[in-house]
């Protein structure tokens, strides 16, 4: 059993980074995630593990610091909240286009614009469809508890390095600010220079020793045929992720007639909602996507052939519902896919979700 603590989600992100052997953090303050950098600065990991922490002059600078450090094979991360992630999107596109591994955390708040500081899930499209310019994808993990905030830091780095691709933890202000019991991971040492060269030496810009060609990190290619080949290579990588990496949790889906699909904070609400609905005799289950990209399409498609309908519950105007509809369509068993959501930083209540379920499927 690892060390048990009562911690805020944002604090856990910092602690997990130190413990998983992260080499560096670059960030810029923004509510509701400023505790990530504050915790790191208070912990002074440079004294303990050698991890570097730096407050950048902007999100734009922070993500480009990530680019530079990631390009040397180091395990680096940043965190921000919705408007800050918009600012980082150019850099994230460059990171994806240069095939660099790194971790980006979005502790979402309501938008658009300056929006609100309350929790939201309205950056789903931005996270799973790319976000910046060009055809690229992030590996997107959606924790629903403080424990998963801890667990997904290491997992995100593992996937990022496996695919040489940026990974994102897409969470929100509720989980970031929430305090829960968490079992912390044991300390893993940072990679030594030799380990880094062994794992990343074929591409990382570590300084060119005699006898090897220069390693060049760039997303630029003026020859269209080569650029198309690069894009095809990226797409192959994304197809492999779609094949191998979808993760989800299914609750009470075995006998379900209806399935609610929800992730992160809204999935916690829906967990209570399915209990309430079942108490009323409605056979309903919950499918919680853990990876938002790659989306658990197969699980949705399989369910669609044995249930009567899906309800997508989101803290947005309805974004993930499009991926559910696509999954149902690709599965071939067409069932209704309905939506319930709250906007602007409001978390739906379990009662509202049950009511939405009844109104969509059980009336008339």
């Amino acid at each position, binding site marked *: 059993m690892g060390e048990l603590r009562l911690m805020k989600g944002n604090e856990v992100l910092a602690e997990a980074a130190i413990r998983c052997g992260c080499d560096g953090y670059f960030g810029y303050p923004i509510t509701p995630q400023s505790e990530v950098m504050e915790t790191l600065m208070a912990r002074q990991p440079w004294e303990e593990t050698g991890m570097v922490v730096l407050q*950048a002059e902007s999100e734009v*600078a922070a993500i480009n610091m990530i*680019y530079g450090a990631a390009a040397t094979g180091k395990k*680096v991360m940043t965190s921000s909240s919705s408007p800050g992630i918009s600012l980082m999107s150019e850099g994230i596109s460059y990171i994806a286009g240069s095939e660099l591994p790194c971790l980006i955390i979005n502790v979402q708040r309501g938008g658009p614009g300056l929006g609100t500081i309350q929790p939201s899930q309205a950056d789903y499209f931005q996270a799973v469809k790319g976000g910046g310019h060009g055809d690229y994808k992030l590996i997107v993990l959606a924790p629903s508890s403080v424990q998963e905030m801890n667990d997904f830091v290491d997992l995100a780095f593992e996937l990022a390095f496996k695919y040489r691709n940026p990974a994102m933890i897409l969470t929100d202000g509720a989980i970031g600010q929430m305090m829960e019991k968490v079992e912390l991971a044991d300390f893993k040492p940072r990679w030594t220079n030799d380990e880094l060269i062994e794992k990343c030496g074929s591409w990382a810009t570590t300084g*060119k020793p005699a006898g090897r060609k220069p390693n060049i990190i760039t997303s630029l290619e003026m020859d269209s045929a080569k650029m198309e080949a690069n894009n095809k290579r990226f797409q192959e990588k994304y197809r492999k992720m779609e094949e191998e990496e979808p993760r989800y949790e299914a609750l009470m889906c075995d006998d379900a007639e209806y399935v609610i699909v929800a992730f992160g904070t809204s999935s916690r609400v829906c967990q209570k909602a399915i209990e309430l609905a079942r108490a009323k005799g409605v056979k309903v289950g919950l499918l919680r996507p853990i990876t938002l990209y790659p989306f658990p399409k197969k699980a949705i498609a399989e369910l669609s052939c044995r249930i009567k309908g899906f309800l997508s519950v989101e803290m947005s105007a309805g974004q993930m519902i499009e991926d559910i509809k696509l999954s149902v369509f690709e599965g071939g068993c067409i069932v209704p896919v309905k939506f319930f959501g709250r906007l602007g930083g409001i978390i739906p209540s379990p009662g509202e979700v049950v009511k939405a379920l009844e109104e969509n499927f059980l009336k008339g």
Partner: protein
Amino acid sequence: MDIKDIIKPENLVYKKSELLIDTIMHYCPGCSHGVVHKILSEVIDEMGIQEKTIGIAPVGCAVFAYNYIDIDWQEAAHGRAPAVATGVVRLNPDNIVFAYQGDGDLASIGTAEIIHACNRGENIVVIFINNGIYGMTGGQMAPTTLVGQVTSTTPAGRNVDLNGYPMKITELIAQLPGTSYVTRQSVQTAAAVRKCKRSIKKAFQNVIDKKGTSFVEVVSTCNAGWKMTPVGANKWMEENMFPFYPLGDMKDSDKKEVSNN
């Protein structure tokens, strides 16, 4: 004495640096970038720091710098090279990191990044090519374009009422305590090239000695953008750029007196 008797290995006095990759650069005839690339490759070679050096290329004409010098390179987004260099050097303090930027990149879109990297005193070299114009995109006005200078976006000449004033960003940077060496050089004559090379060498030595940011501006020509011959552009630069962008050291932490030049 016959020419063949002169052209012998024992008589060789000047040749291409081993670090300069054997390819024809994409730059226009007479472009200053080529000279500065050559200086960089000579300095890195002579200092024996090839294995430790990481270059950060900008967006602009020098975007392909990584094709020309035989070291590890990263290509940064427009204006972000100082942030990228910060990421590299903070996690790899034993590496020697330089950012290579033009005036659109450094003095316009990347103003925040250069000011803050220099203000933090990041232990990097910054090479700043100032030719007063956006070369790669076809000769538009840069923040450094002189008053009255004709560009494709100031066809009647830069008008301060409309476009504001040319920016002396190197003078701003010299004020920042994080910088240890700030100088303005040029490369249009052999003497200027030799002097510029000494400055760039000093900047790299400062990074080895962990003295903070060393910033070398090279007042340069863009004869294609200026619509002049290469030789004519050099003369125009001497007559018009040098009075506004005077050459010389603005700051040198090795010397007690700091001249404002």
